[in-house]
Structures are given as C-alpha cells and as structure tokens.
C-alpha cells in the first residue's frame, strides 16, 4: 500500500467573483521513501495541493471532493483535532520563505523544543534540548549549541532554511512536504539545501513532496514528477520518462525554456502567453491557447491516456 494516495482531489475557493477551482481532480500516490516533484507556474495549484494534505485550507476554500489516504486513513474526512496531531509529527511542511516561517521573538532552541514537547508529552526538557542540538548538527549548522539561543534575525537565509528543515524532521515524519524550499535562496546555497533534503529523506526513510516552479530542481531530486497546469495534472510519471522524453507540449516547453550553460543559442525558447485566470478558463484543453499543436480537437478537455508508462492529458501526445 502506498504511504499517501490522493484520489480525484478537488479544492475549490468560493469567492465573490465565482468558484475558483484551484485544484480540480488530481490523483497521485507516493510510496515510502519516494520523492515526488510537483511542478508548474504560479497559480497552477501546487501549493494548494500541499496545503490540502494538511487540512490548511481556510474559508472560502474547501475540499469538495476526493480522498487523501495517508496510511489508509482519509485525511479529507478527519477533524481539526486529529489533523493537529498529524501536523509536524507524521506529516511536516517546509515553507518557501524561511524569513517568515520562524517566529522572530522566540529563540531557535525554544522553537525546536516546542515542536518535540507538543507531540511527545512524556519527553523532558533536557531530552528535547539534546534532540534539538542533534538535529541541528545533522543539517550541518555550524556551532549548533550556540545557535540554540540565537534569534532568527541573527542568521542568514540559508541557515534559517536549515533550521526550518531541522524542525520539520524533529519528529521523524513519514511524509515531508516542501513548498519551494530553495526559491528564496542563492544558487550556491540552493545546491547545499537540495543535497541535504535528498540525503535526509533517504536516511530517515521519509517520503518527500517537493513543490517548485523550477523543473531543473525537480529533475535533480525526484523519483516521480507531476506537472500541474491550471489546477490539473497534465503529465505524471517517472522522472526519467518525463525529463528525457516529455510528451505533453507544456512539459516540453518548461524543459526547453531553461537557460543552459553550454548552449550557444542566443535566444531562449519561450512558452508564449500566460496561464489563463482560473475564473476564465477556456473551453476544452486549458493549454490550447499557448500550444503550437492545438487544433479543433482540443476544444474538448483531453481524456486521461497512458503513453510510455506515464499518465497524460493531451490529444496530440503520441
């Protein structure tokens, strides 16, 4: 049985201007120890997918349909109290901006210890302190004991992100959700953090969902990739298949438009246009207005197909 199985999940927001279908019928699954990447542009519904797993959807948003089977339990049906026990314990989340995900007026040590003491009532303060220092060493923070009494403003962005990762790992979660964990960081620090996340998820046998807009990052880390566009998954399969043999025109575009170091071409490939507003989605395939292969057939939303071992939604893919 897969650790996490999401079936036909729909998270909609009921706004004054109409229903925004941020996540509209997506399905995927993760085995133990597996790393799944969710890629797409801003507004594709990647983060909402992550938040839905943890029940972090606020009004006017609501999970309207679908199952989130975590260890066989459907989280979509569970109460807030139940989810509070899961959050930061069995499922942990790493947010994009380390500057805002730590409390600026509480020391690093206290924040780490709180995460342990909340979920494990039997632990003593001493044990919590030791566990916190150990985990800081594990994520490669220099002078770990000294850092316990530091405050967030005294640390650099890379150090803060390490602490956020340490905090997420404290209770040995089965599933880690990382929402753009390196987007706010420099390229050099990004490489370190990515390496660390891959190593730790293997060491801890945690599964990882990596949410990002950068398909290059995903390709370096993940076993499986789901490409999202306007609230739906358009291509989903093994990393090797998706990266080296993309079938969906959108996936092809995402890969093609990356700047490459050894490429002598002056101009970059660009996907024309922008993603349509979720309030004014076109009839048929959502990508058709930006797609060079689109024709009359694309006025109907493409059915799910299976081509070369991946799930894909496109009339034109062969």
């Amino acid at each position, binding site marked *: 049985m897969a650790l996490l199985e999401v079936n036909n999940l729909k998270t909609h927001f009921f706004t004054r201007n109409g229903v925004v279908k941020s996540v509209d019928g997506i399905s995927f699954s993760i085995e133990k120890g597996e790393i799944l990447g969710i890629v797409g542009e801003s507004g594709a519904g990647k983060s909402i997918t992550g938040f839905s797993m943890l029940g972090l959807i606020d009004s006017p948003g609501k999970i309207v349909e679908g199952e989130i089977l975590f260890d066989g339990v459907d989280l979509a049906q569970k109460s807030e109290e139940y989810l509070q026990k899961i959050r930061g314990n069995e499922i942990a989340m790493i947010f994009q901006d380390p500057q805002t995900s730590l409390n600026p007026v509480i020391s690093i040590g206290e924040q780490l210890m709180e995460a342990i003491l909340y979920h494990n009532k039997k632990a003593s303060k001493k044990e919590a302190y030791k566990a916190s220092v150990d985990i800081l060493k594990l994520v490669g923070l220099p002078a770990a004991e000294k850092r316990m009494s530091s405050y967030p403003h005294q640390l650099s962005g890379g150090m803060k992100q390490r602490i956020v990762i340490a905090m997420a790992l404290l209770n040995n979660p089965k599933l880690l959700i990382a929402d753009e964990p390196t987007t706010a960081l420099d390229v050099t620090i*990004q490489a370190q953090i990515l390496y660390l996340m891959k190593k730790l998820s293997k060491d801890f046998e945690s599964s990882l969902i990596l949410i990002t807009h950068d398909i*290059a990052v995903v390709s370096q880390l993940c076993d499986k990739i789901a490409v999202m566009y306007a609230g739906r998954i358009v291509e989903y399969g093994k990393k090797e298949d998706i990266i080296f043999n993309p079938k969906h025109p959108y996936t092809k575009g995402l890969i093609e438009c990356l700047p490459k170091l050894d490429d002598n071409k002056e101009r970059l490939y660009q996907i024309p246009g922008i993603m349509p507003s979720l309030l004014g989605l076109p009839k048929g395939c959502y990508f058709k207005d930006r797609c060079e292969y689109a024709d009359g057939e694309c006025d109907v939303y493409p059915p799910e197909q299976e081509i070369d071992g991946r799930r894909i939604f496109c009339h034109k893919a062969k």
Partner: protein
Amino acid sequence: MSQSEVKLLEVRDVEKIFSVKVGSFEKKDLHALNKVSFDVFKGKTLSLVGESGCGKTTIGKVILGLYEATNGSVVFQDKDIAKLSPAQRGISQKDIQMIFQDPYSSLNPRKKIKTILEQPLKIHTKMKKKERLATMLSLCDDVGIDHTYLERYPHQFSGGQRQRIAIARAMILKPELILADEPISALDVSIQAQILNLMMDLKDKYKLTTLFITHDISVVKHLSDYVAVMYLGEIVEYASKDELFKNPKHPYTEMLFSTVPDIRTPLATESVLKTGEIQSPIDLPQGCFFANRCPYKVDACEQSHPELVDLGNKHLARCPRIGEF
C-alpha cells in the same frame, strides 16, 4: 580597446562603508564595497554576478545616487556623480533608469499604468498630450503589453506582465543606461525566458546599455557582453562573456557554475556541503576573502590580500594561485 567601444560609465575604486551597531555601545564598519572598478561601454551589457551580500545591489544604488559612495568616483557624462544625490545630479538623473527585482512592490498600486508611464514624460519632456500617448503606445508594442492595459491598475496583472510594465517605465525617457537589479529572479522559470528574450530584443533595437545584476550565472550567458563576478564587495573575476564561460579562472566562478541546477547533470555530491556560506562583511579577513570556502586554499592565501591580475585578453582575476590548478 576597440574603436567601437565608447565608455559610458566609469567606476573607479568605489568604496562604501556602512557604520553598523554590533552591541549596545559599539559600532563597526561594514565594508559593502571594496575598491570596485569597472567600465560600462555604450550599447553593451555588463553583468554583475554574485551571492546575496556581495555588494552587487549596493554598487547599483551608488550609480543611481540612492547611496553616496564613501570613496572613489563614478564618471557619467563627464561628471563625477559618486557623491551627488539625485537632486544634485539634476537633469542627468533621467539618463539612468532602474528596473527593480520585485514587480509587486515597484509599481504604485494606486496609479493606472497610463499614469505610471506618462509621469516621466510630463516631468522631463515638453511633449504634448498626443505625443505622449503616441510614445507610450509605441513602447507598449515594443514590450508586449496591450494598449487597453493602460487604463488598468497594477494588481490586475501577473508578475511577468508587471515586469514588462516596469521595463517600459524604465525605457520611456530613452535613458543612456539601464540598471536591471535581478529583474527576473522573482518570476517563474517559464516567464523568465519571456522577459530575458524581451530584454535581448530591446537591446538590439535601441542599442541599450545595461548593467545587469543577478545571482544566477546561467542567465548571464544570454544577455551579457562582459561579466564581472563579485564576492564580498570586490570584483574577483572580469572577462568577456565568451571568455568567462569557456575559461573560468577563479575558484568562486567555478563554484557558481557547478551549483547551477541542470536537468542533465545529477545532483551535486557531498562536496557541495563544503562550499559553505559567504562571511560577514564586518571584520574582513586579512587574506583572500574567499579562502574559507576555497577548495584550493593554501596557507599563503590567508596571509595577504590578492590583487586583481590581468591575464591578458581582457581577462582579470583575483587569486594568488591562478594557473597553479
């Protein structure tokens, strides 16, 4: 120097020292820029590359007049503007325009796009209303924003469209020099390609001179003629784009190249953890600033501070062990 290269901006030995509080009573000097020198040639793009905290934005702000340089000179239009505020610079200020990183905070949310673009023309030109509109419309075509967008407000646009508007605003007075401070790093990768291509098109069409500031060395390739790599407030390597990409000399440049994520290379190995972090610009070391992260470090590196050495072919690097590895 070939004849086609005319100096537009000359930056010489610019230093910027901030005084920061380190305790209740003690103050220390933070050396944001240490004797930075470079030239920007007419119609060419110079890229400044480096991590956060390397001083690349500070030098941009000195050129723009938002900071006053502590020492050194910035010569623009035969005038040293290093210590002049924007007001003291007078009319020449309009010839340097800036594109900021975050298009969500750089456009006034209460003003229509039309007002944002028209204001500089009203202040700096004697154009009639009709001429102003014609100028705006032709620029809109150039940067790819629809004419109907002029009546809208910034919040109605996506990040990429806002950045197009910000580019239009910077270009509307036909400035001599454009400073682009991380203009694409707040955007999605797919939109980054669009904006980079747009900047290349505009460069060709208007022979723009640009100072392009970025932390991502992979995007530099598509836009630059020259590249300066900065580390802790100084230039550690300078070369033409082709030369730098073919033949990087400084260990830091090498490190920047090796950490760019690429779909065809596997994730970096354990060694990436040894690359460490940039150190604080307070209490700078006596020797090479990069020594604590450098894989080729020897004892001599910590003794004296290396100078920028000319390696020929307009390639400069600051490393005592150049050519040894």
